[in-house]
């Protein structure tokens, strides 16, 4: 495959463009995604290429945005709706939770809802408590939609294309702190199957389950620990529903140790489910307590000093890994 480096935001943009070219049922809607190409520029240039009919600026009406995406999807379209910040998903809470994931089921399979709801959460943007939230565990708790949490440009593109083609509703959660990172993305078209975790780095001593942005923190820590003779395996789930239990469990069976690093709140976060799966299904293989590193259980503070300490980081991860390494097999 031809290798080139593009940013996460470019990868997303390519995915949208390619899918819109491929399938004319695909269209976009959201606040400020058209004329200015989105406040984060993910949809840049698409209004120019596809026009106002397929790249629709909407009023500030999150309920209507998600609701209209659902309606268009059940009537044969392939809407990709953008909710500007993950926080605002809650402004569409009823459509998001009571409708989107339930319609197929409630109608006995008569309808399908192939809508994608794209959104992003930021990190280190110091945007305070109403513009910094990330609560993927709630979405995992609600059956009926798929959830993507790409950590690299490669995954972002491949997963978004798959989500658009998939017949199920998808919540596609981007990380604004990754928008500008670069990574290799082939020129050729590719898709990433939904429900396959990716081992971002192989290792034997400890499994680090890293979510979204935290994959990069884990990789950096793993590199440093290699020098100290600790071999870290980094598991990136890539999708939270379907959740690839097998890759997780296989890794823990191999390493016997699990550290979780996630940028959502610790209590009842994604890591809780991960730890619970292991406590249920790989209990005998575990040689050390599980450690969860997550955002503190407080709303995101504005002040950068407090905010930076609110999130888990590489140092905390290295310490946690060393701690579980003290337990012998």
């Amino acid at each position: 495959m031809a290798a080139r480096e593009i940013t996460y935001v470019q990868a997303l943009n390519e995915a949208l463009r390619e899918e819109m070219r491929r399938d004319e049922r695909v269209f976009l809607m959201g606040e400020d995604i058209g004329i200015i190409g989105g406040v984060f520029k993910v949809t840049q240039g698409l209004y120019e290429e596809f026009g106002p009919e397929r790249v629709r600026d909407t009023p500030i009406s999150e309920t209507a945005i998600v609701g209209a995406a659902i309606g268009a999807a059940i009537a044969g379209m392939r809407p990709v709706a953008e909710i500007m910040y993950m926080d605002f998903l809650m402004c569409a809470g009823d459509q998001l939770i009571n409708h989107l994931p339930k319609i197929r089921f409630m109608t006995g399979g008569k309808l399908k809802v192939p809508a994608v709801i794209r959104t992003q959460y930021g990190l280190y943007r110091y945007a305070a408590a109403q513009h910094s939230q990330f609560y993927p565990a709630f979405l995992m708790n609600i059956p009926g939609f798929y959830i993507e949490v790409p950590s690299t440009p490669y995954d972002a593109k491949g997963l978004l294309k798959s989500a658009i083609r998939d017949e199920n509703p998808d919540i596609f959660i981007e990380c604004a702190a990754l928008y500008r990172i670069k990574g290799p993305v082939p020129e050729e078209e590719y898709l990433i199957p939904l429900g396959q975790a990716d081992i971002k780095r192989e290792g034997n001593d400890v499994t680090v389950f890293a979510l979204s942005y935290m994959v990069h923190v884990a990789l950096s820590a793993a590199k440093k620990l290699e020098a100290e003779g600790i071999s870290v395996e980094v598991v990136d789930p890539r999708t939270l529903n379907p959740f690839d239990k097998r890759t997780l469990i296989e890794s823990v069976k191999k390493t016997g140790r699990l550290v979780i690093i996630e940028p959502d709140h610790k209590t009842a976060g994604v890591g809780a489910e991960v730890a619970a799966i292991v406590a249920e299904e790989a209990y005998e293989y575990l040689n050390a307590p599980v450690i969860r590193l997550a955002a503190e259980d407080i709303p995101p503070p504005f002040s950068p000093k407090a905010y930076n300490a609110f999130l888990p980081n590489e140092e905390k991860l290295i310490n946690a890994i060393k701690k579980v390494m003290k337990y012998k097999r």
Partner: protein
Amino acid sequence: MGLNMSSSISEISKEVLLDMYYKMILIRRFEEKVVELYRAGEIPGIAHGYIGEEAVAVGVCSALRKDDYILSTHRGHGHSLAKGIHPRYLMAELFGRKTGVCKGIGGSMHSTEPEVGVIFSSAIVGGNIPIAVGVALAMKMQRRDNVVVSFFGDGATNTGAFHEALNLASIWKLPVIFVCENNFYAISTHVSRSVAAKEIADRAVAYNIPGKVVDGNDVIEVYKTTLEAVERARRGEGPTLIEARTYRWLDHGMYYLGPYRPKEEVEAWKQRCPIKRLKDLLLSKGIVAEDVLVNIERRVEEEIEDAVKFARESEEPDLDFVKQFVYVR
């Protein structure tokens, strides 16, 4: 708001009029049977009767083509039957059987049969309105001339979903008709204590669309007003809000919630029975002889009996069966 059948019926074909009569009787008998079966414990869950409001569903749906769409509510049996769902499949759904419109998974409040244009029903008050807008958006983008009707109650006009959806539909000039069934109560709460507008139809001003009040017990008036709105929508001129004033004879749901309506009010509205009014009109204008109507009534009785028998004899879904319908896989 005309208190008598002011509008001329000469332009309406006998066939349409008789079909209206048939549908209204069908709904009435169906609902009477539901009450009976509910009390007998044969119908589980929660259900809401449509008795007294038949002219709205029938007047509206008679103005639609089969391939036009409606979206319905918690009080949806009348809409489903008026649009053409066979009583067998609706009854089986209420019984929670595999042969029901939603395979017994949805129940009373989620009736869906896209083949006849019942594209979705939501039990969330106001919930179907944004989705209807999305269906209408799909019609427009697909260059189809179908129109979409969203039914909802007076109470629903106080939801944020109503507001966002009507605004979006107007901005995008979508082929959707918003039919508010104003039966003066949301459960126990009278419109005067919940809707601040002088008239619900006035809310159309906020969206710069026509807002019309009709006598919801006059099937002819409902029909004609809907026809106008349908034509406007098909011409690409956008949505209409219709406020149809009517009344429910039964309590909110199947069980008694205490007194909140004056007995005289209920009685007065029963005097204005929409079915009797159509019958009187058909007979007084000499459009049909009484025995034709009696035959219709007889036919309906048989259909209802048949529907109950069909439902009773149908199989219940089990957990493994329903599990298939969460995702498209």
